[in-house]
């Protein structure tokens, strides 16, 4: 049962489907392991359906709550899926360094370079050192997420007469104004069960991109500058100034670490509003209260750059998932080829939030204006950087950094936090 009947909707590249039909994978089995569950799983399956339908392959998709752990177990134990799709470059790097991934080949890398917006940076993101130390292209980017977004309720802004800020400085002025009006500007929630703290890392990364040049950012994620470098401490401090200001954040700073990130945007929609702005990636809209209409009840603006640093342009923080071959087979290769096709992106785009840097896709395929707008932010970005914590080693990016964020909003001085994280980083070198 295909979601969109082939040939019927002009937005889709149906020629891709025809081409795919020539590939015969009958009798072959392809196992795919991905991070998507629930509604997302239904979406990804709707894309995969075209691949199976056309090629006749037997495809098994699975996911798990502990997919991170699961993929480590499966690859280490020698029973990996054919294709793994993962959102963490750090984890991919580790798998690659253990020799558990198969290089995709130079032609695939060339394809990405040529056809993706900011192609080289995507190629760089997919290139890792293998077991032998040689660099190769392992991870094919599929599906991107935009992080530098601030969500708000247009009604609330209208009522209070607030304008969407276009510079960081304006945004802070707006915050002060809201406070003066008796409101609370921000909702921040770092809670995420075992991953508590990560939303804070996004804040810091966004601030890094707005206060430092991209190469400083890159050095930071590689620890080529120490975590307690003044540049980083400064970014931490800027975030801390917002998050630990009881007037700025809903519930006071104590609530920041305790509030679940999934619950935190809901303050935008209460009556009276608990807050006016919420910085979070594009996915967050699925946690808005039921019936919230994007564009009407909720909207977003690009987290503005600093007017004081005009040379940094409009940096964008993003994330994405990468497909890689964990067990080589003809079907796996064909699947990667499938992902190169615009159709593989358009099917999902047409239903909901898939952003893609693939330039060949029909932008009209985006399901709504909101997504299109996000797509524009992505394309109009002068700098695109991948989520830094995902680039750091797991122990840091998914450990010390998180804990550091919790400590930071708990009132620990930015410098101490940075030093502690650096210590952890030293420990794993």
């Amino acid at each position, binding site marked *: 049962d295909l979601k969109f009947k082939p040939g019927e909707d002009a937005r889709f590249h149906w020629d891709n489907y025809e081409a795919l039909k020539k590939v015969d994978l009958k009798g072959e089995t392809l196992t795919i392991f991905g991070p998507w569950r629930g509604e997302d799983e239904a979406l990804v399956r709707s894309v995969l359906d075209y691949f199976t339908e056309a090629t006749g392959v037997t495809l098994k998709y699975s996911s798990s*709550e*502990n997919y*991170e*752990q699961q993929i*480590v*177990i499966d690859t*280490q134990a020698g029973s990996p899926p054919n294709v793994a799709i993962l959102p*963490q470059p*750090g*984890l991919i*790097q*580790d*798998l690659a*360094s*253990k020799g558990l991934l198969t290089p995709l080949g130079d032609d695939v890398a060339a394809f990405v370079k040529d056809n993706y917006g900011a192609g080289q940076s995507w190629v760089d993101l997919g290139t890792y050192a293998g077991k032998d130390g040689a660099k190769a292209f392992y991870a094919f980017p599929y599906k991107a997420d935009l992080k530098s977004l601030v969500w708000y309720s247009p009604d609330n802004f209208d009522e209070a007469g607030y304008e969407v800020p276009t510079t960081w400085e304006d945004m802070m002025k707006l915050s002060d104004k809201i406070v003066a009006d008796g409101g609370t500007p921000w909702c921040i929630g770092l809670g995420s*069960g*075992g*991953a*508590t*703290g990560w939303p804070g890392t996004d804040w810091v990364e966004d601030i890094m991109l707005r206060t430092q040049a991209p190469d400083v950012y890159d050095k930071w994620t590689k620890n080529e500058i120490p975590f307690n470098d003044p540049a980083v401490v400064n970014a931490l401090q800027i975030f801390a100034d917002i998050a630990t200001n009881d007037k700025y954040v*809903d*519930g*006071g700073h*104590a*609530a920041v*670490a*305790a*509030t*679940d990130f999934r619950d935190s945007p809901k303050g935008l929609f209460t009556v009276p509003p*608990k807050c006016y702005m919420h910085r979070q990636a594009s996915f967050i809209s699925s946690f808005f209260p039921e019936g919230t209409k994007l564009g009407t009840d909720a909207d977003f603006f690009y987290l503005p750059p600093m007017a004081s640093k005009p040379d940094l342009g409009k940096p964008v923080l993003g994330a994405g998932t990468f497909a890689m071959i964990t067990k080589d087979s003809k079907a796996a290769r064909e699947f990667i080829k499938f992902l190169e096709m615009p159709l593989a992106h358009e099917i999902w785009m047409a239903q909901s939030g898939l952003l893609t840097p693939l330039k060949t896709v029909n932008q009209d395929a985006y399901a709504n204006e909101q997504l299109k707008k996000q797509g524009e932010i992505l394309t109009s970005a002068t700098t695109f950087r991948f989520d830094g914590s995902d680039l750091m*080693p*797991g*122990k840091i*990016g*998914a*450990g010390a950094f*998180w*804990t550091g964020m*919790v400590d930071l909003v*708990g009132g620990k001085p930015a410098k101490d936090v940075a030093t502690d994280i650096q210590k952890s980083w030293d*420990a*794993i070198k």
Partner: protein
Amino acid sequence: MASQIFSAVLVIVIGVGGCVAYFWGANKLLDLVFPAHGVSGGAAVDNLRRQGLIRPWLFIGPAMLILIVYLIYPVIDTLWLSFHDRGGQNFIGLANYEWAFGDREFRNSILNNVLWLAVVPAACTFLGLIIAVLTDRIWWGTIAKSLIFLPLAISFVGASVIWKFIYEYKGEGQTQIGILNAIVTGLGGDPHVWISIPFWNNFFLMVILIWIQTGFAMVILSSALRGIPEETIEAAVIDGANPFQIFWKIMVPQIWGTIAVVWTTITILVLKVFDIVLTMTNGQWNSQVLANLMFDWMFRGGGDFGRGATIAIIIMIAVIPIMVWNIRQANKETGGH
């Protein structure tokens, strides 16, 4: 559906039947090879002696085989890993152990674990015992027991959701949706982010495990309590002991062995359990414990098997005193036979 049910039943029957068949068959075989019935007296005696030598191994054979494959072999593998680096390729000697004892988080985990070990087994056993005794005496005891038992049947994910809603914090002045804060504010206090208060948050996490595991202690102790000869209790009643004295001086000492079993089991569980810490705090706010630390090193971001294995080995070493104590106990019990 019918055919699915049929195949499921078939699979189950084969699985269980195979196991029964082994024991029955092996025993039969032993009787056939060394017959004890229907042969002359002397031969029968010899055969019996041979059977006596072999039969224990028939009985524990499958258990040993499975233990070796599923636990001992992985333990050895882990031990081997603990002397290697993160990918498990290069031998690095005791470096991982050196690292562990120098690591701040590790030391913090040890301290927290000691706290957990001191509180949780005692609390579970004590509460389980009390509840087992009390529920034995009332007509709705079974219902009460099932309700106490209920948490055990809830998956860890479910349990963490439950407790999230108990410890939930909303800023001062807002409606509290966490019942603990609702009570505290209802009584005029200030709401707190319970799981982020260093040191004390350990206790808030322990409460969860206690909540879950008391049902376990209760079930086992309740089955032990039922083995106490009624007449000894009657004798104590006549001796004028009140219910408390009967409980402490007559019942508890008679099920001491079981109490030790429950205590040991929960102690070991405490050493192993990481889900609660993982889902509630992931070791933040100084609430890290060894098991979660191990999990962390093992799987997070690709993992460092060497260090993960090292922590696992250290956890296992921590159990040695419990082992020794239990063996003493076991030898005391079986001393007579």
